[in-house]
């Protein structure tokens, strides 16, 4: 129904980039878009302060805030489609320090509206789901406060009109991710996972920060539209540093979007509650890096094609290695985490191949079906109280709604025709093929095969065969299944927004920007038969192999896996030893010898200095007290006092009490004065 409106509604068709497209400023809808950012932040603050006193521990505020964002994002989306496309930049000056003005600026254009819509809709689904999932949790208020803070931070990031604000949103997203991964911090590995995510992200963020500083200083402004103008003008100063800036920004994106070699944090981040994994570690937060590359895409495309090659290579490595790892995981959330890595690799590689729309389209569709898969996994975990697929099996009968939505999500992810993932993945494969990247195309197809394989495996082990866990699993409540049904609808329908040759709504949306169309790439007008055919073949093969290997003999899965892939197995089971490499190559040397050396320095050198200083001060104090104060100053004061006492003791006998003696003294004194005067006059 919605799709029908979208197919019929969009009036603007791809202009091809030659003629200037006139955009509207969006009126009050765009100038009020700051509300989208502010409302979640205010809600997060309110939950922190008053959440515990509310009947549902603040969940109602959280859901209200993100529902507002979803409605606002949807209204913006439709108004940009119905009109000429909104491009608007608003700013409020927060403070002025000399010549330096601090402003909070927000940009409303096709790209940010797309992100508002995704973040709003997926957040609403995940938040509503979380109300059911977090029932009886130890810290629901803290959870919803952090979760809402995340929504605000993510919207701050995608609405940022300048790089500084983007960085603030970027870091706040990292903070809320840290808080939520470590939500169950009573277990050491959960808080360690949070720290791992934060530290790995932080290392990558240094690249982002340096890139932003170089770009800002070179251009003289941190405002994105100014930088884009310079790109369009082919500014010489920016051209000199463009590759460096692009690579540094990409390093930041590699951290947030968990690209090789920064991918290690994402699987561990599954320690957080499942709604967090669904929203942050599948749909939104990890796409921040993809968003950043897309936002800066003209810079990459026009000035730094070499950096784009780096993007392509990194994306390709990630999509292959993560896909392979997803095959051997037993933890269902980790299967999905590695799958997310692999799909992020597709998005990044697509952008690296110059396919701006394809990369973003995959981001868009992936947000729906991957968050759906995570919510389904959470529903299963909720029912069997275990993350491991070796404790599941046969759940299709007990949990029909979860089963069917999970099937839809898996099919969309694997790229079954006419579901969302089919269109977006096909477009990416087509962009590899048409761009002449034959190796990347081949690896992309192989990974499509792997994707179908591991999703078939996950579905088989979870929903088919015999139930291997304890107790009786039951379907989750409606508060959890309804959001899943909604997202399943999205996973079916959103692919139709960008069918080559038929619809171009998505292309029109994400190219509605202040830069000209040439810098954002062309729109595919027909299916690439080669990509379509090979992709479909990979899908069918993947499902077939998965069915053959995993459908029948689920109970003894792990042992048989070990026998089937003898060479690859140890490598995969140990995650290519990358975590061990980091642990033994970086973490242990740092915390071993270096820490010991610093400890030694501390206890023998610094402590020595401190102790000597202490001893000296102590001696000085003793001298000052005993020698100077007690024997010098106090003695003098005591002697003066004793002298005064002694003198007073002697002199008091003058005071006889006899009036006549006093009178005699008086007269004698008067006489003395008289004689004195007399002598002085004569």
């Amino acid at each position, binding site marked *: 129904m919605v799709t029908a409106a979208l197919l019929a509604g969009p009036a603007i068709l791809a202009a091809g980039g030659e003629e200037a497209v006139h955009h509207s400023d969006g009126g009050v809808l765009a100038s009020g878009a700051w509300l989208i950012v502010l409302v979640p932040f205010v809600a997060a603050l309110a939950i922190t302060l008053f959440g515990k006193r509310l009947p549902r521990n603040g969940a109602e505020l959280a859901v209200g805030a993100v529902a507002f964002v979803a409605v606002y994002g949807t209204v913006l989306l439709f108004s940009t489609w119905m009109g000429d496309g909104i491009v608007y930049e608003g700013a409020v000056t927060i403070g002025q320090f000399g010549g330096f003005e601090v402003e909070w600026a927000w940009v409303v254009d096709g790209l940010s509206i797309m992100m508002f819509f995704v973040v709003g809709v997926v957040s609403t689904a995940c938040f509503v789901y979380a109300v059911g999932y977090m029932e009886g949790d130890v810290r629901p208020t803290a959870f919803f406060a952090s979760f809402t803070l995340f929504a605000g931070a993510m919207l701050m990031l995608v609405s940022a009109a300048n790089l500084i604000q983007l960085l603030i949103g970027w870091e706040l997203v990292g903070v809320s991710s840290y808080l939520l991964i470590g939500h169950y911090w009573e277990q050491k590995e959960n808080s360690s996972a949070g720290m791992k995510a934060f530290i790995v992200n932080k290392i990558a963020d240094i690249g982002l920060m340096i890139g932003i500083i170089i770009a800002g200083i070179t251009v003289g402004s941190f405002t994105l539209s100014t930088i884009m103008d310079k790109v369009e003008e082919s500014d010489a100063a920016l051209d000199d540093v463009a590759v460096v800036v692009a690579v540094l920004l990409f390093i930041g994106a590699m951290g947030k979007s968990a690209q090789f070699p920064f991918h290690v944090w994402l699987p561990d981040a599954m320690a957080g509650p499942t709604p967090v994994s669904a929203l942050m570690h599948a749909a939104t937060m990890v796409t921040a890096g993809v968003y950043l590359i897309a936002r800066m895409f003209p810079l990459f495309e026009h000035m730094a094609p070499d950096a784009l090659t780096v993007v392509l290579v990194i994306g390709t490595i990630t999509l292959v290695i993560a896909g392979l790892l997803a095959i051997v995981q037993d933890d269902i959330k980790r299967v999905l985490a590695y799958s997310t890595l692999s799909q992020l690799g597709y998005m990044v590689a697509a952008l690296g191949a110059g396919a701006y729309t394809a990369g973003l389209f995959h981001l868009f569709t992936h947000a729906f079906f991957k968050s759906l898969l995570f919510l389904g996994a959470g529903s299963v975990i909720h029912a069997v109280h275990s993350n491991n697929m070796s404790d599941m099996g046969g759940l299709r009968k007990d949990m029909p709604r979860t089963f069917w939505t999970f099937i839809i999500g898996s099919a969309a992810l694997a790229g079954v025709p006419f579901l969302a993932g089919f269109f977006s993945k096909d477009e990416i494969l087509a962009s590899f093929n048409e761009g002449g990247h034959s190796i990347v195309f081949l690896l992309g197809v192989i990974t499509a095969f792997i994707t179908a394989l591991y999703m078939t495996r996950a579905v088989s082990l979870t929903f088919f065969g015999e139930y291997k866990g304890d107790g009786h699993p039951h379907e989750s409540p409606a508060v959890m299944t309804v959001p899943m049904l909604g997202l399943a609808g999205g996973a079916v329908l959103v692919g139709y927004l960008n069918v080559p040759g038929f619809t171009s709504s998505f292309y029109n949306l994400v190219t509605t920007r202040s830069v000209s169309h040439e810098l954002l790439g062309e729109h595919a007008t027909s299916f690439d038969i080669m990509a379509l055919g090979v992709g479909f073949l990979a899908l069918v093969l993947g499902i077939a192999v998965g069915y053959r290997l995993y459908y029948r003999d689920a109970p003894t899965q792990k042992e048989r896996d070990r026998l089937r892939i003898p060479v690859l197995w140890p490598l995969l089971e140990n995650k290519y030893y990358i975590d061990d490499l980091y642990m033994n190559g970086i973490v242990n040397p740092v915390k071993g010898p270096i820490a010991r050396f610093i400890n030694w320095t501390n206890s023998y050198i610094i402590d020595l200095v401190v102790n000597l200083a202490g001893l000296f001060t102590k001696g000085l104090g003793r001298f000052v007290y005993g020698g100077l104060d007690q024997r010098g100053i106090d003695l003098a004061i005591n002697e003066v006092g004793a002298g005064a006492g002694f003198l007073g003791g002697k002199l*008091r*006998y003058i005071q*006889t*009490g*006899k*009036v*006549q003696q006093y009178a005699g003294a008086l*007269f004698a004194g008067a006489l003395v004065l008289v004689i004195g005067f007399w002598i002085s006059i004569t």
Partner: protein
Amino acid sequence: MTIAQFLVLSAAMFSIGIYGVLARRNAVLVLLSVELMLAAVNINFVAFGRHMADPIAGGQVFALFVITVAAAEVGIGLAIVLLIFRNRASANIDELDALKW
């Protein structure tokens, strides 16, 4: 009569007064001696006032003031002496040394 005669008289009275104040033991007589000294001063005031032909009679005015003050002083003094006598059955000034060291 010359001024010297008055001054000699006055000096003699003042000296007798000092002697009385310092040597007498009876508190009443001490007060009496003080009155004598004040009278000597009054004689001096009047004599000098006449001698210098003061047009506003300052010497006489001051003598009148001194008489007034002396009357008040002797009134208070006698009252104190009376109270001391009542308390201690003695007006002997030598014994009044309660304020010594």
